[in-house]
C-alpha cells in the first residue's frame, strides 16, 4: 500500500521534470501541469510518510527502504523506455 503511494508520488515527480517528459511522453507539458504533478507527487510522498509515522518505528524504516526501491523502479523504467524510443 505505502509502496504504491510512494511509487505514484515518485512517478509524478519524475514526470514533472522536463527531461523525463521528453523521454517518456515525447513532448513537454505546460508549466501548470508540471507544477500540478510536482505538488501531487510531494503530497503522495507526505501522505505515505504520514501513514508510516502513525504505524511506529518499524514502519518508518520500511518507508525509507521502500523509497529506495520505488525510486529504483522509476529510474529503471525511465531508462528502458528512453532506450526503446530512439
Amino acid at each position, binding site marked *: 500500500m505505502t509502496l504504491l503511494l510512494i511509487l505514484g508520488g515518485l512517478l509524478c515527480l519524475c514526470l514533472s521534470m522536463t527531461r*523525463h517528459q521528453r523521454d517518456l511522453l515525447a513532448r513537454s507539458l505546460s508549466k501548470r501541469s508540471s507544477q500540478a504533478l510536482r505538488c501531487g507527487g510531494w503530497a503522495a510522498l507526505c501522505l505515505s510518510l504520514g501513514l508510516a509515522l502513525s504505524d511506529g518505528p518499524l514502519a518508518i524504516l*520500511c518507508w525509507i527502504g521502500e523509497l529506495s526501491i520505488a525510486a529504483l523502479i522509476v529510474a529503471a523504467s525511465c531508462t528502458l523506455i528512453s532506450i526503446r524510443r530512439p
Partner: protein
Amino acid sequence: MKDGFRQTMAFLHSWAGLFPGWLLYAIFLSGSLTYYRQEITLWMRPELSGAAADPQAAVHAIDRLRQAAPDARLWRIDLPNARNPVTEILWKGEKGGFRSEYLDPRTGGQLHGRETMGGDFLYYFHFDLHAPVRLGRWLVCFAAIAMLVAIISGIITHRRIFADFFTFRPRKGQRSWLDAHNVAGVLALPFCLMISFTGLITLATMFMPWAIQRAYSSDTAAYARDLKGQGMVAAAVSSADAPALSGPMVDHIVGRAEQIWPKGRAGRILVDNPGSKHATVTVERRDADSISYDLVWLRFSADGRLIARHDGGGPAVTTHGWLYGLHLARFSGGTLRFLFFLSGLLGTAMIATGLILWVVKRRTQNPASPRPMAAERANVAMIAGLPIAIAALLLANRLLPAGMSGRMAWEASAFFLSWIAALMNAWMMPPKRAWTGQVRCLGLLCLAAPIPQMFVPDSGLFAWVRTGDMARVCVDLALFITGLTALAAASKASARRRAKA
C-alpha cells in the same frame, strides 16, 4: 570562492573515496550478505535440520548440558527460532575454554554437522577483515570515517544528484558511470549515512576509549559490569538451599519470563554456576523483538524466584542500544530485511561505480598513456575478485570432505587463495581482458556452488523445494541469479570488444 569550495570538495571526494573505497567495497558487500547470515549458515550446514520453537527445546538442552558438563561454570542455550531451527548449547569449563554443540530441538539429540564457520565467516570479515590483533577493526574504523567524509563531500560535488534523480543514460562511457554512481548513491543515501554512522558507534569504545580510561582507570571489565547493571532492579537475594537445577524448572522459568513479556519470546538462557546451590538462570529476550540491542533480561534463582531484572538502561545506554540495533537489524522481518539487504547492495554498487569512474575519468583525460593504471588493476582484483572469493568459499564448503580435520581453516584458505589468484590475474592481464575473464569465472563458480549438494540423497535444491526449506532454496536461487547475470555481462562485454576490433 564558491567554485573553489566545490573544487576542494571534489578533490577530497575523489581521494577520500579511492583508497578507503576498496576497503569499503569489501565491508559493504560482506555486510550486506551478513543480513542473511543465518540463512547462509544453514546453507553451509546442509546436514542440520530441526523444528522452529519446539516447546521442549529448553528441557532437552538442560538434560544434555547436565550430562555433558555438570561442573561447568556457565551454560548458554540459544533457543531455536524461525530463522535458525536448531538449539545451540555452549558451556565454559571449570578451567575456562568454551565448547559448543548443536541439538535437535525435538529430541535433544546431538546434531553432527561439517566443521564450518558458516555465515559467521563473512560476519567477522565485515568488521575485522580476519586480520591479526585489532588491525582489521582499526582499518574498518578509518574506512567508516572516510565513508562519512566521502558521502558529505560527494553530496556537494555531485550537487545535481537531486535534479538527475531518475537519470541513467546507458552506453555513454564516463557519463553512464557517473549516472550510475549518482543514482545508486542518492537512492541509498539515507541508508549509507545511517549505516556508516551506526557502524562507527559499534566500534566507538575502541577508537574513543578516553572516557572509560578516565572514569574507570582503563578497567574495561568494571565498565562492562556497570553498563550491564544499569537499570537492573534487584529483588531479595535467595539464600535458601535450592535443589539442583532441572529441565522442568528451567522450562517453568522460561514460561514465567514469557508471561512477564507480553509480546516477547525468550531467545537465550544463561545459567551461572549450574552445579552449585547458588545457580542463577538469566533469560534474555529474543533480539528480534526490539529495535534496540540493549536486550531485556530476567534473572531467577534455581528454585524459580525472580531475583533481578533489566528493562533497559538510562538515556545514553538506550540511545546506544537503538543505534547499535539499527546497524545489526536483527529485529527485521522478511520484507524489512530484504530492504536492508537491497540498500546495502545499492551502497556497494555506488562504491564500485565510484571506483570505476575514478579510473575512467583519468583515462579519458589522458588517452595517450598506454600503460594501464595500478588503480585499474586494483579495481578488477577488488570488485570482481572479492565476489569470486566468496563464491569459492561456498564451493569449498561443498567440495571439501565433511569429516576432514582442520576443515574450517581450509575453507578460509579457499577464500583468500582465490582472492590472491584474482589479484595476480589482474596484475598480469590487460585490465579489459581481466575484467571479462574474472566476471566469467565468478559466474561459473556461482552456478557450480549449488550443484554438488544435489547428488546427496534427500538434500539439494529440489529436495529443499519439496520440503519447503525456503532459506536454503533462496541462497541457491541467489547464486543462480548472480551466476547467470555475471555470465551475461561477461559475454556482452566480450562481444562488444570483438565488434570494436
